[in-house]
């Protein structure tokens, strides 16, 4: 804090007090990258390349689904990451509320994870529609899994909206932590009701596959590669996003401090005059 004058207008110039040349974006200080994230990032890219090679190249076509099974090698990992992300959100919400010192770190982890989860659910829904078009002949089917996923998406979009409501960091953290835990009650209820609803209806008879396929070794391996690749990606994204959120909070605090200091500086001479 001491190195920076709050009145310094240069928001997009690096502070010279740091004594570093301005134009070196790859310096650790100028980003949220560390050695850990860089190693992770490279591993992610390699794993993704591997996934594409296996998913589109080496793995065989399925007996029932033929070539469209290849979509599952990205479809299954994306939804797995989305579920993982929402579980992390729920757990870190609980840890925030349980922790005695109400650590904002847990709150930011919850928020970062939810944001990534929303992105991945959106991708999953879009890719799932493409897979459905090839396998079922329709983009959308009102089955329990799809409908629950769509509602899951909207629920966490709402969660992210609540995070942006404003107030102090602790207020935001408490509000969103409670909401993150309510979602844990809400999602099973939604899933159960949709499942009960659809089980009473006649299943579509033209296409009798629900997405579960008997996979041979290579197919299973490709899927595993996908899950590993996307898990690495998730960790990488969460690290960067959490760090960025920490800086957002810091800057907001500093803006508040600067405003208070300015107000005090205004008030002080006036007080002397009176």
């Amino acid at each position, binding site marked *: 804090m001491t190195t920076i004058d709050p009145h310094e207008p240069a928001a997009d110039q690096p502070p010279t007090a740091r004594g570093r040349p301005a134009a070196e974006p790859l310096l650790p200080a100028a980003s949220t990258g560390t050695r850990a994230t860089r190693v992770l990032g490279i591993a992610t890219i390699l794993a993704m390349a591997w996934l594409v090679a296996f998913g589109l190249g080496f793995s065989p076509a399925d007996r029932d689904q033929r070539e469209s099974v290849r979509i599952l090698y990205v479809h299954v990992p994306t939804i797995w990451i989305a579920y993982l992300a929402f579980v992390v959100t729920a757990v870190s919400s609980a840890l925030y509320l349980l922790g005695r010192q109400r650590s904002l770190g847990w709150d930011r982890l919850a928020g970062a994870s939810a944001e990534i989860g929303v992105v991945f659910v959106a991708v999953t829904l879009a890719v799932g529609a493409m897979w459905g078009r090839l396998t079922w002949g329709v983009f959308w089917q009102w089955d329990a899994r799809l409908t629950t996923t769509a*509602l899951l998406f909207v629920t966490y979009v*709402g969660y992210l909206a609540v995070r942006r409501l404003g107030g102090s960091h602790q207020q935001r953290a*408490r509000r969103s932590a409670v909401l993150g835990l*309510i979602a844990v009650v809400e999602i099973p209820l*939604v899933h159960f009701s949709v499942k009960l609803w659809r089980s009473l209806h006649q299943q579509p008879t033209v296409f009798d596959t629900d997405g579960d396929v008997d996979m041979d070794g290579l197919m299973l391996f490709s899927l595993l590669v996908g899950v590993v690749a996307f898990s690495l990606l998730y960790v990488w994204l969460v690290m960067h996003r959490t760090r960025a959120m920490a800086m957002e909070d810091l800057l907001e605090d500093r803006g508040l401090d600067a405003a208070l200091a300015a107000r005090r500086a205004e008030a002080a001479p006036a007080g002397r005059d009176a």
Partner: protein
Amino acid sequence: MSPWRIARLVAAKDLRIERRSRVVTSQVLPFAGITMVIFAFALDANQRILEQVAPGLVWLATMFSLLVLVQRSFAVETADGALDAMRVAGVDARAIYLGKAIGLGVQLLVLEVLLLAAAVILYGETIRVEGLVLLVTTLISATCGLAAVGTLYGGLAAGFKGRETLLPLLTLPAVAPVLIGATRAVEAALGTAGAVVSDGWPWVGLLIVFAVAFGVGGSLAFGPLIDE
């Protein structure tokens, strides 16, 4: 004062405000009524289709009105900081939650009965005696669930700019089970499309589980959500 007594007082206060201000009768009820009319426009006033989908339309109109009622219910509180005042005075948040939910539930129940009557009149729906018990149980359990969710998210969104758009975003996915369950149960009670009464009871079970889960979850979460 016991939490029950506070809850009763809060609910009575809300209902008294609504009776005197006539906002519900002069704005929310007409809104619900026009919803039922425009559904008929959308479905080309096809009597056969309307009869079949009437239970769903009744609940859809109820949910839209729920959003309006919840906003109204918390606008009354936040307009002069009444909610904060109650909290500062040390009133138990769970009691406030319960009271607001009861007040909202009573209004909803009245609304649902009127919407059902509208379905009978406008869509040619018939109410049969053997489904009456199921119908009443469904109305009560669904109302409890809706009031629990509505009060919870209404309290969360109260006092923020942009809450008008936040409330439906949070509420509608959460109440989806109620829409599904209550619609199926009312279909069974009314015998829509040849449904039999016994089909409806599992759905009432779902509605009760929903109401209990959100009632308990809401009363625990309400305090942390409104404390600022």
